[in-house]
């Protein structure tokens, strides 16, 4: 590989669910500052791969190394505290809370760690947290609705809110599970613009995506996953030219 710093290294990870090889000897290296897309047909193991990265699923074999540190028995919150944030396929937000509160909570996690008993100084006094949260809401264009209850948002807006919740933590690695699924073309384009803008901040991103338009306009590197194996790995041009990929995925997608 190149001499660039490897932020995330998924090293020979193997995971079986019953008789199904969800992930078979997956080896993946994500360089610092890049946008790395993982594509593949349905059921290829993309979401399983992300779940392994955030500690939701323990691999049977192999390990995930983040920033030189092996994530063996780390809980999801510990992995987040190391600097990994995740956007889920179905938005996971705090539906009963206001947008501003939704974004302030991750900012608290970043500042105060996994647990801090702070019952004396009121939320209203936390100016630094509030400013960060408002900036993150502005990044995704939801600043005018900061006092709205999050559950009332449209699906696309919920995704944007969840993205703001991750951005406010300024993570070293951002994992996005189909960030534009269920969005209109217009919303998709504005999400692409948003992701391009935050690319300049040097945040490393791993994106799972179905939409080839999104993948090819964002990704620096693409890995193609099919039936739990990585069948191709490289720049968008390499992947586009790869006959195996055409057969497994792009061929079907373009019909």
């Amino acid at each position: 590989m190149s001499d660039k710093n490897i932020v995330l290294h998924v090293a020979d990870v193997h995971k079986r669910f019953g008789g199904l090889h969800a992930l078979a000897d997956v080896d993946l290296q994500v360089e610092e500052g890049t946008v790395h897309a993982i594509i593949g047909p349905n059921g290829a193991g993309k979401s399983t791969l992300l779940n392994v990265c955030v500690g939701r699923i323990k691999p049977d074999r192999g390990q995930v190394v983040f920033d030189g540190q092996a994530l063996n028995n780390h809980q999801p919150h510990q992995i987040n505290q190391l600097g990994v944030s995740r956007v889920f396929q179905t938005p996971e937000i705090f539906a009963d809370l206001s947008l501003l509160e939704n974004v302030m909570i991750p900012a608290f996690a970043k500042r105060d760690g996994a647990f801090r008993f702070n019952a004396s100084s009121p939320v209203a006094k936390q100016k630094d947290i509030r400013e960060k949260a408002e900036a993150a809401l502005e990044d995704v264009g939801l600043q005018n609705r900061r006092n709205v209850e999050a559950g009332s948002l449209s699906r696309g807006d919920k995704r944007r809110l969840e993205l703001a919740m991750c951005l406010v933590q300024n993570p070293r690695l951002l994992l996005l599970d189909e960030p534009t699924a269920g969005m209109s073309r217009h919303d998709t384009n504005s999400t692409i613009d948003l992701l391009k803008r935050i690319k300049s901040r040097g945040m490393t991103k791993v994106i799972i995506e179905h939409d080839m338009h999104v993948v090819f306009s964002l990704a620096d590197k693409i890995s193609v996953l099919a039936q739990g194996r990585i069948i191709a790995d490289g720049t968008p041009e390499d992947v586009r030219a790869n006959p195996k990929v055409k057969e497994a995925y792009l061929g079907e997608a373009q019909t």
Partner: protein
Amino acid sequence: MFKGLSRNDWIMLAGFTAFVLLMPIILQPIGAAYPALMQKFCIFGIFAIGFNILFGLTGYLSFGHAAFLGVGSYAAVWSFKLFTMNIIPAIFMSVFFAAIFAVVIGYVSLRRSGIYFSILTLAFAQMCYNLAYSVLTPLTNGETGLQLTLRDPRWIDAMFHEPGAGLPRATLFGLETSGGGLGGFYLCAVALIICFYISMRIFRSPFGMMLRAIKSNQNRMRYTGFDTRPYLLAAFVISGVYAGLAGSLMVATDPLAGAERMQWTASGEVVLMTILGGVGTLIGPVVGAAVIKYFENIFSSFGPDTLHGVFSFLPDTIENALVSFLSLFVGEGWNLTLGVIFVLLVVFMPGGIIEGLRRLWVIFTRRRGGGDAVPAAPHPQPAE
């Protein structure tokens, strides 16, 4: 310490304080202005406020909080028996032991959520109840209940003066709190106001916000970098301490403790109080506690005679029919009335009495001001 609450919060706190302290006057017209009942309002108010910090903020429904109330009561009586009739050490002992029990029970129960958590807390509380009844009789005096006796050592009191004739009364540096005077009521009232203030601070703090977030989406909390277990345990222990304090105040106003205080019905009662008043609201649990205690004490004393008095203007046949129907709901039947109210409330106003009042307020202000007279909150206050 006294900074950071919004103006509305200060107004609410001031109003609450004034109301609680003036209860002996305000409650005259509804016949509830006697100390024994007002004490109950305050004590169960504290119990329910504490319960609401757990149930209202985190959504974890404990069915065993009466255990902490009972532990607090026993601890307070032992403090009276062994050390002094001053209530300060008794309160400290109660809070201390309730906290220890809450840490142990909470640590185990919080490994599960939802119905399993409820069942675990229920099981623990029933265990405490049965132990108090049987095995631990030397500590709890079993069925009879733990009482003061003339042979109690009371070491600290004995150092200062000879024991007088008869059983001593609980005091706060000379102010008698047991025996049915206003002293006991004002003790409970001040404790209630302090507890309300602390609860308000918790609601407005980052800690309170995290608890509400856990209720909303615990999964998201974990992937956001929070270890939710200590947050839940802290909320559980705080609510256990509130219950222990309520238990010690029961003893401070009436120095005896019985195992029935820990029975599951007592745990269920605080759930009813909280839901009736309004889960997750600041003031709702106190209102719920007062309503239930009022029904239990006042409504239950109404008999057919009272009803005959009320409906005497009607013709005799209608009066008799009406009275015989309504007497099902008063006297012994007060539970029936409460049940009906509870069912109606949960079906039509899940937010409890507080939600009902808020709706009335909205209707009232609309009619007067017209349009959107509902004041927009300066910052989000979803909890109140």
